[in-house]
């Protein structure tokens, strides 16, 4: 390694090492020595063992075809991110690695996630109380004039919307901390689709959008979480309503595939006659915090987490989520779910 590179690398605050395919450290910068001292070799050996043995370690960094390869490992109570930044910087098979101690970062992320969960939990309680109180007052709405009734309905819809936003943040927090789990049960699709549509009819009516159930009543039961799937469907319908101008149509369809007695998948579609999504935006809409401002027709804003959460729910069920859109005509969100979740058949595997 030339003096120039060695000098430059020594100026970096992050540990850098060049390791050979045999597992020896051929070069280490000053930050590496400062971080790991004379135990750098031992540290790398321990990291290799943690990553599944020396062969696993070498395989990861040297057999990978891609130029970059990153792993995160926990070692001696600290969290490290090891990134291969260059293949074969030496004449022998080797890799240049940048090692970053991300313990503080991971702890901060965890603290942020815990804090968000706590705050959101605390917000849900009073919000539920407000919703229940509004529902009760609305059930007595005959006593009020039409103006007061309209205001109460508006307050009820907005509190429902706020509860949705709070729930999204809570779900996002669970996804981030790996606590997002699916409790599999038998799901009656027809029932949850109908309920989802019914629950959003007041919002559709307020916005002058016709919301239709466009599916048969003989859909197969599938395996999944009724709560999570309802949440995903409600999220997709809410999104469609949000981006559909007055006079538009939103439909919720569902079909079993293949048609017949033993379907393997169901395909749920939530389709709107909104203003559509530009082609260059289509690839980004499932990213977290992504808000498709150009589609918004009522200036409503959300957390930008809705579609990200829907995708997580669908993927947790072994399904797929796709979008089709024609700018100026409409958008369709398409969910494909397996009717049965794949199970590990121990008996079959033992028998080969």
């Amino acid at each position: 390694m030339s003096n120039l590179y060695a000098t430059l690398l020594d100026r970096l605050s992050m540990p850098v090492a060049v390791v050979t395919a045999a597992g020896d450290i051929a070069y280490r910068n000053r930050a590496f020595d400062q971080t790991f001292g004379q135990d750098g070799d031992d540290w790398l050996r321990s990291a290799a063992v943690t990553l599944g043995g020396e062969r696993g370690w070498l395989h990861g960094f040297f057999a990978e075809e891609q130029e970059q390869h990153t792993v995160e490992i926990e070692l001696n109570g600290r969290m490290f991110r090891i990134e291969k930044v260059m293949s074969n910087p030496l004449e022998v098979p080797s890799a240049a690695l940048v090692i970053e101690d991300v313990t503080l970062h991971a702890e901060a992320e965890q603290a942020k996630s815990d804090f968000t969960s706590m705050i959101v939990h605390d917000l849900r309680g009073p919000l539920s109380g407000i919703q229940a109180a509004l529902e009760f007052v609305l059930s007595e709405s005959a006593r009020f004039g039409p103006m007061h009734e309209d205001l109460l309905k508006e307050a009820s819809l907005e509190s429902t919307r706020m509860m949705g936003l709070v729930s999204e943040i809570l779900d996002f927090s669970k996804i981030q901390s790996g606590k997002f789990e699916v409790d599999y049960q038998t799901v009656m699709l027809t029932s949850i689709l109908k309920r989802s549509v019914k629950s959003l009819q007041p919002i559709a009516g307020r916005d002058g959008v016709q919301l239709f159930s466009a599916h048969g009543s003989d859909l197969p039961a599938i395996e999944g979480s009724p709560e999570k799937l309802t949440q995903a469907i409600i999220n997709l319908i809410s999104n469609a309503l949000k981006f559909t101008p007055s006079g538009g149509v939103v439909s919720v369809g569902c079909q079993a595939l293949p048609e017949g007695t033993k379907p393997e998948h169901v395909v749920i579609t939530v389709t709107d006659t909104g203003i559509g999504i530009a082609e260059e935006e289509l690839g980004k809409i499932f990213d977290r915090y992504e808000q498709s401002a150009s589609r918004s027709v009522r200036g409503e804003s959300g957390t930008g987490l809705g579609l990200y959460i829907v995708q997580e729910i669908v993927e947790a069920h072994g399904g797929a989520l796709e979008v089709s859109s024609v700018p100026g005509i409409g958008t369709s969100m398409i969910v494909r779910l397996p009717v049965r979740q794949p199970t590990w058949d121990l008996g079959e595997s033992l028998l080969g």
Partner: protein
Amino acid sequence: MVAAGIKHSGVWATWLHLIEARTDHSDDLSLRGYCEILRNQIVREVVVRTQSGLAIPALSKAFLDDYSRFTLNAQEGYLVSLIDGQMSVENLLKVSPFDPFSTLFTVAKLLYVGAIELPE
């Protein structure tokens, strides 16, 4: 591509073309999505054309003269049997055994093929 199809051939022709393609590629989710977008557009147009269901459809002269030249499926045939020139689309939706979305789509199709017509 779909937008260009609509521009050149109209919503119905594009929808029919996509449905044909979907038969060969039933696993293609995005194709399914495009079919649904056009189906929604067709329903939206028929809602506007029927003045949100207030219009009263009637059988067309062409249909009354020679109904055998219209190839209708069971659902279309059933809805045609309900059209008496007195019932509004809104009431048709109430008596139809099919869901409102399918019924409106079928009304749109019957209008498209010229089996029924709406008053000027």
